[in-house]
C-alpha cells in the first residue's frame, strides 16, 4: 500500500486525482471530509474518467442512523452520473466535525471487467449521525485514470482531505 497523492482543500471545492499510474492492482481512498450543504448531513461521491453518463453508476447501501438500519439501492431510478460512497457532515455542524471513510477500488486498471468499489464510512455528531457500508458498480470496463471526489449536495468544505493509495498484489499469494 503506497500513498500516491494527498489533497487538502484550502477553499470549498472538489478533489481530483488524475494520471493515475496503471501499475497497481487496487486503489484505496481514505478521507476526512465535510460539505457546505445547508442540511446537517451529506454524502460523498466519486466519478471515474469524467464519465458523466447517467446510469453508469449503481450503489447498494447498508446505512445505520443510531436507531434504524436501511438497505437501499441508488442509481437505478433515478439514474446517477456518480457513485455514492460515504457519509459526511456539513458546515452546519460544529466547525471541528468531519466525517471519515475508506473506499476500495478493485482491479482499477483492468480493461476487461466493470469496476466494483467497496466503502465504509461514518459521521457521529454526538446525538445524531450515520454510518454505512457500500458496494458500488461502474458499468464501464475502461481502466481508471482519473477520479473526481466531492459532495453530493454541495462541494466539499475547506479542510476536507483525501489520500489516494495504490495496492500491489502479492506475487506469492495473489492477494
Amino acid at each position, binding site marked *: *500500500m*503506497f*500513498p*500516491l*497523492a*494527498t*489533497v487538502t482543500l484550502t477553499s470549498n471545492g472538489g*478533489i*481530483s*486525482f*488524475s*494520471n*493515475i*499510474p496503471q*501499475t497497481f492492482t487496487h486503489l484505496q481512498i*481514505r*478521507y*476526512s471530509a465535510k460539505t457546505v450543504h445547508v442540511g446537517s448531513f451529506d454524502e460523498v461521491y466519486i466519478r471515474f474518467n469524467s464519465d458523466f453518463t447517467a446510469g453508469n453508476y449503481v450503489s447498494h447501501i*447498508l446505512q*445505520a*442512523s*443510531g*436507531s*434504524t*438500519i436501511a438497505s437501499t439501492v441508488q442509481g437505478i431510478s433515478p439514474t446517477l452520473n456518480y457513485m455514492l460512497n460515504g457519509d459526511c457532515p456539513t458546515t452546519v455542524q*460544529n466547525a*471541528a*466535525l*468531519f*466525517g*471519515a*471513510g*475508506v473506499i476500495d477500488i478493485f482491479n482499477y486498471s483492468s480493461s476487461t471487467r466493470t469496476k466494483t468499489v467497496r466503502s*465504509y*464510512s*461514518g*459521521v*457521529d*455528531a*454526538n*446525538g445524531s*449521525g*450515520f*454510518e454505512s*457500508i457500500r458496494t458500488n458498480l461502474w458499468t464501464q470496463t475502461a481502466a481508471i485514470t482519473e477520479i473526481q471526489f466531492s459532495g453530493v449536495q454541495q462541494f466539499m468544505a475547506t*479542510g476536507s*482531505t483525501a*489520500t*489516494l*493509495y*495504490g495496492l500491489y498484489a502479492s506475487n506469492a499469494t495473489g492477494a
Partner: protein
Amino acid sequence: MPILPLSGAASSKGALVPISRVKVLTSSSYFTNIPQIYRDLRVIVNGASGQTNGMDTLAMWFNEDYVNTNWSQTNMIGNGSSNSSTRVSNAAFLSNLGPVPSAITPPNTTGTYIIDVFNYSSTDRWKTFIVRSANDLNGWGTVQMTTGLWRSTAGINRLNVYPFNGLNGTQLWSSATVSLYGVRAANQ
C-alpha cells in the same frame, strides 16, 4: 491533482507503518508517546477477555480522557438473525466497540477488531474513528461497525484499549495481541 511518477520519494515508501505491538495475557494494553507524523492510525486487536461472567465488550479512550463526557458512537449490529442500530452520546469513554469473547465461550475463541482513527494528529478537528469488529462462536456471534467521535482537537498521543468488564475485575485479557500502525499520507 496529477499523480507523480512512482520514483518520487513519498510514493516509494509503504503507507502502513508498524509502530508497536503488544502481546498481552492479563496486563493492560495501551500505547503511549504515539508519534505525530502519520495521517491516520490503525489498531488491530485479536483477543479474548479474562472475565468469567459472560461476553465482554471492547472499550477505548485517548489521551487518558475518560471523565469529560467527550465521547459518542453510532453502532450497526448483526447477530446472525437480526440487526439493530444504537447510539451513545456524552459518554466518559466508549465501553462497547464490539463484543469480546470471554471464558464462557468455546475455548480459544477470540474476537477481531480493526480500528481506523482518522487525522489523529490534527489539531483543527474532533477525532472520528471507525471500528469494525466480529466474532463467530460456532452458532452465535456478532458483527458490528461503530463510528465514534472524540470531541477534542488535541493530537492523540496515547491510546488505551481494554475489555470493559475485565477492566472492572482482576483480569483484563485472557489472551490478546494488539498492534498499532501509522498510515502515511503522500506528503509524509
